[in-house]
């Protein structure tokens, strides 16, 4: 372990990588929205527009052996974690080449290879799971961190409080990452919480906590490094509240009657990609051409993902009941395409 790990090294290369990861998510999801209107993607589609700095700031700080539990708004987490864009999009198409074989869709991206324990679409439902993953590591003497993403809406759930208590009580290595985008679907935080300062709830469970500007990728990364370092040193949980904002609708069905356009516009001026790019260019750390190059690379990656998803195949309906139990897993495993 390096001597100082709580400070990000904002080299040019690292800065470009952070920017690229955010652009990957933004551009990919823009394409997803388009594919949704074309009915290539169905079901619910929850976009991360505006919140990219959270996943991009937190996930690269984790090691390969660390674990991630995410929510139904998890395309960004999956991409940053290294789940290939091809299989993520194929999943959203419902194709068997998808990362969950088309069984999960947008809200349930899973990837064993990268310890990605899924998008969980029950608000708060992923927190107890994260506690269990961390409990197993704790009992097996493994210094593994479980990062658990959830939104401000989860804070109202009993599972949030049960999980924070268990993590603190048993001293479990969980990085709680609250993506506070101020709205639980259409219900503003102030309408659902008596205490809107979320990180204070964590400290009431004696969990080290901090709130950070979730629109600033460098600030998020710095805080995440601090948190992960603290967890590895102490084995105890750490709570990171990332104050962010969802710039698009909750899902593709949301008419956004609950908030003013002016509010959204005000937040758009603070959005993480423009802000980080502007700062990097102003400080002459990167050239605009390099950003253009990023966009080109991302466009190519997206084109490849679309081609992959389009070329994907439908799982025969005869295989519908496979994987309900493990008994039939072996035969089906042999037919996996990856």
């Amino acid at each position, binding site marked *: 372990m390096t001597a100082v790990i709580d400070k990000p090294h904002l080299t040019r290369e690292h800065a470009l990588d952070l920017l690229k990861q955010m652009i990957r998510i933004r551009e990919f999801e823009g394409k997803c929205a388009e594919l949704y209107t074309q009915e290539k993607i169905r079901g619910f589609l929850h976009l991360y527009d505006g919140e990219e700095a959270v996943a991009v700031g937190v996930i690269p700080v984790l090691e390969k052996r660390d674990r991630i539990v995410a929510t139904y708004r998890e395309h960004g987490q999956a991409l940053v974690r290294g789940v290939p864009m091809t299989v993520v999009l194929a999943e959203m198409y419902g194709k068997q080449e998808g990362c969950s074989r088309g069984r999960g869709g947008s809200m349930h991206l899973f990837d064993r290879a990268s310890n990605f324990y*899924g998008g969980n679409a029950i608000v708060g439902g992923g927190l107890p799971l994260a506690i269990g993953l961390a409990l197993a*590591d704790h009992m097996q003497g493994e210094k593994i961190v479980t990062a658990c993403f959830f939104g401000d809406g989860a804070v109202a759930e009993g599972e949030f409080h049960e999980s924070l208590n268990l993590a603190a009580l048993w001293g479990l290595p969980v990085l709680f990452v609250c993506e506070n985008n101020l709205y639980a679907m259409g219900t503003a935080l102030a309408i659902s919480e008596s205490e809107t300062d979320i990180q204070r709830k964590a400290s009431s469970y004696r969990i080290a906590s901090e709130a950070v500007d979730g629109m600033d990728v460098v600030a998020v990364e710095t805080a995440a490094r601090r948190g992960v370092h603290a967890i590895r040193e102490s084995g105890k949980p750490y709570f990171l509240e990332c104050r962010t904002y969802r710039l698009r609708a909750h899902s593709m069905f949301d008419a956004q009657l609950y908030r003013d356009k002016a509010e959204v516009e005000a937040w758009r001026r603070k959005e993480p990609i423009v802000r980080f790019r502007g700062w990097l260019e102003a400080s002459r750390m990167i050239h605009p051409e390099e950003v253009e190059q990023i966009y080109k690379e991302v466009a190519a990656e997206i084109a490849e993902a679309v081609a992959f998803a389009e070329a994907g195949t439908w799982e025969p309906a005869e295989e519908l009941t496979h994987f309900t139990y493990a008994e039939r897993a072996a035969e089906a495993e042999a037919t996996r395409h990856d």
Partner: protein
Amino acid sequence: MTETAPSASIELTYREAVREAIRDALRRDERVFLMGEDVGRYGGCYAVTKGLLAEFGPERIRDTPLSESGFTGAGIGAAMAGMRPIVELMTVNFSLLALDQILNNAATVRHMSGNQFGVPLVIRMATGAGRQLAAQHSHSLEGWYAHIPGIKVLAPATLEDGRGMLWTALQDPDPVLIFENVMLYNMTGKLAADAGPVDIGKAAIRRPGRDISLITYGGSLWKTLEAAALLAGENIDAEVIDLRTLRPLDDATIMASVKKTRRAVIIDEGWRSGSLAAEICTRIVEQAFWDLDGPAARVCSEEVPIPYARHLEIAAIPQVPKIVTAAKAALGRT
């Protein structure tokens, strides 16, 4: 049941048989641990886990806060990360607080993840009425759980099964729920000193007979056997099937029996409407209709919350006289 020489068997309670199963599992496999409310210092709400804390320590006999959803979900996560947890939920009524985790995570993860993750978790809980604990501690909801694809549901009714099903359940790569009827904990009997794991896929014929199939499980097994003994006094030779596993159901054993006896009564402590008994009835109609000499019948709980008063509680759930009456009616005898 198996015949064992007296010298090779020990006398014990169902409670002790389950405790022995837990102790054995903890000794056999370091990945096994038990967590739940009052399992440690208190010794278990029904005293099943008494003494285990001293033997295995607080990491493996883990007292939890009253956070059913939290610690059941933690069991799921721990199972996904290589442990073999046994989660104890105090009663089936409390398990409803963990239903999100059981249904939305444990039962779905393998399928929803395209077979990337499994949940080798065992959840034990007490079920059933008979202790005057009224409407929030006495229900029999195992039939509800048996509705859910992705989990297996066991109902050990004998000492052998109380002792033997747990280890087999722990070897299963998928979540297994074990329902222990509260009226069985004090039941005593003889168990082979070397009793060990048993299969969990098959129903058992606890009493062979020719005239009618009485199909049951859990706490109702012993009432049904008592009813069968009374029926024998009236020259009715009843076959008693102990389902043992409620999901998946062992259709083969049920149908073979019904095809032989041509009559069936299902005894189920769950409520009648939408019950496991209804499911079994349907399967008999689907698979053995032409072998029946009369309609299949059911003895279930009355459609009320289980009441406190002793006489009302008795009236609410299946009892020996009701089973006898139903069996005779199915045979056209009064």
